[in-house]
C-alpha cells in the first residue's frame, strides 16, 4: 500500500516536472532495463526511469523509480535485488516483486558550494528500507580541487515469512559517512580518492538462512553491531591520440568482523566513430572470510551459515563490454528525426564469476540497455 502511495507521489512529481518543462530545462531522462540470470534458475528483470531537471537556475531535482521482478529466487539471494525466499518454498516456483524510488534535490550556493539531499524508499513482500542522504560539496581553486562530504541514515525492516504465512519484522539501522576529494592533474587527467565509514546496528542476519550445528538446525545468528571502513583511489586519463580514456580504481575495505578485501577495477573506453563509444572493463575482488574472533570468544552463541558466500573467503571476476550510440548519427540525413539529436542508446553485457570448485562455483550474466534523452 505504501509503495502505491509513493508511486502516486512520483507520478505527481513527474507531472509537475513535465508542466515546468516549458519554463525551465529538463536536463536528462533515462529508461534503463536490465536482465540478469545466474547459473541457477534465477532470473531478474529490472525496469527503471530516471529524471534530472533544473529548476530556478540553481536547483536540480532528481527522481529515480525502479521495479524488479525476480523469478525462482534462490535460498540465499539473487544477484541484483538480494531477494531470498523461505526454505519451505524451496521446491516450488517463486516470484518476487520489488519497488524502489529515490527523490533528491541539489542546490548551488555561492557558486563554489553545493548542498544536496535525497530520500530513498524500497519495498518488497518481506523487506522494506528507507533512507535519507545529505551531502555538501565545496569547490576550490577554480574547481580544480573538490571536497565532498556525504552522510546517510538508513532504517530497514527485515521481514521473515513464517511457516504459518505470517510476517515477522525486525529492525536494522545503518549510518554511513564518506569523504571524497577530486583533484584535476592536467587538461586530460584527474585523480579521485576517499574514505567511507559505516555502522550497522540491529538484526544483521538473513532470516531464512539456517546453520547445521551437530544434529540441530539453528537460525543464523551474527552480532548485532558492525563497523566498516574503506579507502579508495581512482585515476582517469583521456588519451587524445587514441580518442580513448582509461580509468583504474583500487579499494581496500575492512571491518570489525575481521573481514578485509581488495578491489581493482580497470576501464577502457574508446570512440569507434564520433557517434559510437566502446566500453570495456575488468574488475577483480578478493576478500578474507569473516572471523568473529573476539565476538565469538565472548558470545559462543554466534553462528553463521558456512555456505553463505558473503561471509567466507572469496575471489570474483567481473568483465564487461558495452556500446553507446548517439542517435544524432541518424538525424543528419533525416531532418524529421531531429528530436533524437540528443538521444543515446546503450547496450552492455557483463559476466560476474568466481574460480571456486564446482559446489561453490558462481556465474551471473547481466544484460543492460539504456535509452537516454537530454533536452
Amino acid at each position, binding site marked *: 500500500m505504501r509503495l502505491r502511495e509513493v508511486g502516486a507521489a512520483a507520478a505527481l512529481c513527474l507531472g509537475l516536472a513535465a508542466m515546468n518543462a516549458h519554463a525551465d530545462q529538463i536536463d536528462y531522462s533515462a529508461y534503463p532495463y536490465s536482465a540478469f540470470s545466474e547459473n541457477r534458475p534465477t532470473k531478474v528483470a529490472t525496469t527503471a526511469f530516471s529524471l534530472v531537471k533544473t529548476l530556478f537556475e540553481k536547483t536540480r531535482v532528481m527522481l529515480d523509480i525502479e521495479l524488479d521482478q525476480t523469478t525462482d529466487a534462490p535460498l540465499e539471494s539473487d544477484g541484483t535485488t538480494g531477494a531470498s525466499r523461505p526454505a519451505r518454498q524451496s521446491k516450488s516456483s517463486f516470484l518476487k516483486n520489488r519497488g524502489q524510488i529515490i527523490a533528491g534535490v541539489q542546490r548551488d550556493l555561492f557558486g563554489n558550494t553545493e548542498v544536496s539531499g535525497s530520500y530513498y524508499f524500497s519495498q518488497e513482500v518481506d523487506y522494506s528500507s528507507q533512507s535519507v542522504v545529505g551531502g555538501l560539496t565545496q569547490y576550490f581553486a577554480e574547481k580544480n580541487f573538490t571536497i565532498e562530504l556525504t552522510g546517510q541514515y538508513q532504517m530497514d525492516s527485515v521481514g521473515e515469512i513464517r511457516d504459518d504465512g505470517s510476517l515477522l519484522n525486525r529492525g536494522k539501522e545503518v549510518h554511513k559517512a564518506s569523504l571524497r576529494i577530486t583533484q584535476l592533474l592536467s587538461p586530460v587527467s584527474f585523480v579521485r580518492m576517499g574514505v567511507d565509514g559505516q555502522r550497522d546496528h540491529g538484526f544483521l542476519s538473513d*532470516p531464512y538462512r539456517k546453520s547445521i550445528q551437530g544434529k540441530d538446525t539453528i537460525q543464523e545468528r551474527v552480532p548485532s553491531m558492525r563497523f566498516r571502513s574503506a579507502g579508495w583511489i581512482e585515476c582517469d586519463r583521456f588519451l587524445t591520440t587514441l580518442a580513448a580514456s582509461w580509468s583504474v580504481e583500487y579499494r581496500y575495505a575492512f571491518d570489525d568482523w575481521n573481514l578485509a578485501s581488495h578491489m581493482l577495477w580497470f576501464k577502457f573506453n574508446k570512440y569507434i566513430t564520433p557517434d559510437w563509444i566502446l566500453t570495456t572493463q575488468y574488475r577483480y575482488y578478493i576478500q578474507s572470510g569473516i572471523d568473529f574472533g*573476539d565476538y565469538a570468544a565472548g558470545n559462543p552463541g554466534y553462528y553463521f551459515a558456512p555456505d553463505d558466500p558473503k561471509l567466507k573467503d572469496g575471489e570474483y571476476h567481473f568483465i564487461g563490454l558495452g556500446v553507446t550510440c548517439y542517435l544524432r548519427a541518424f538525424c543528419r540525413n533525416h531532418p524529421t528525426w531531429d528530436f533524437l539529436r540528443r538521444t543515446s542508446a546503450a547496450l552492455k553485457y557483463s559476466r560476474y564469476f568466481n574460480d571456486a570448485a564446482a559446489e561453490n562455483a558462481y556465474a551471473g550474466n547481466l544484460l543492460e540497455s539504456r535509452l537516454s534523452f537530454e533536452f
Partner: protein
Amino acid sequence: MKAALQAATLAAAASRTAVAYAALALLALALGGCAVVKPYEREKLADPIMNPDDALGKQSVELKLFSTREAGIGGGSGVGGGCGCAK
C-alpha cells in the same frame, strides 16, 4: 571480559581508520601543488568517455550485484535491498 574484547577490536579498527585518513590527508597535501587547469582547458575532462557511468548509465545494478556476493563495504550510496543485502 566481553566488553574488553569488543573494545580491543574497535580500537584496532579505529587505528587502521586513522592510518587511512592520515594517508589520504598526506596525498591531498601533495596534490595541492598541482597545476591549475583553466575552465576552457577542460573539454577532454568533460567528454562522455571520461565518465562512463553517465555514458552507459549509473552502475547501481552492478553495485547491487557485487553487494550480494561481497562483504566489503560498497562503492556507492549502497541503499537498501532484499534480505541478501542484510549483511
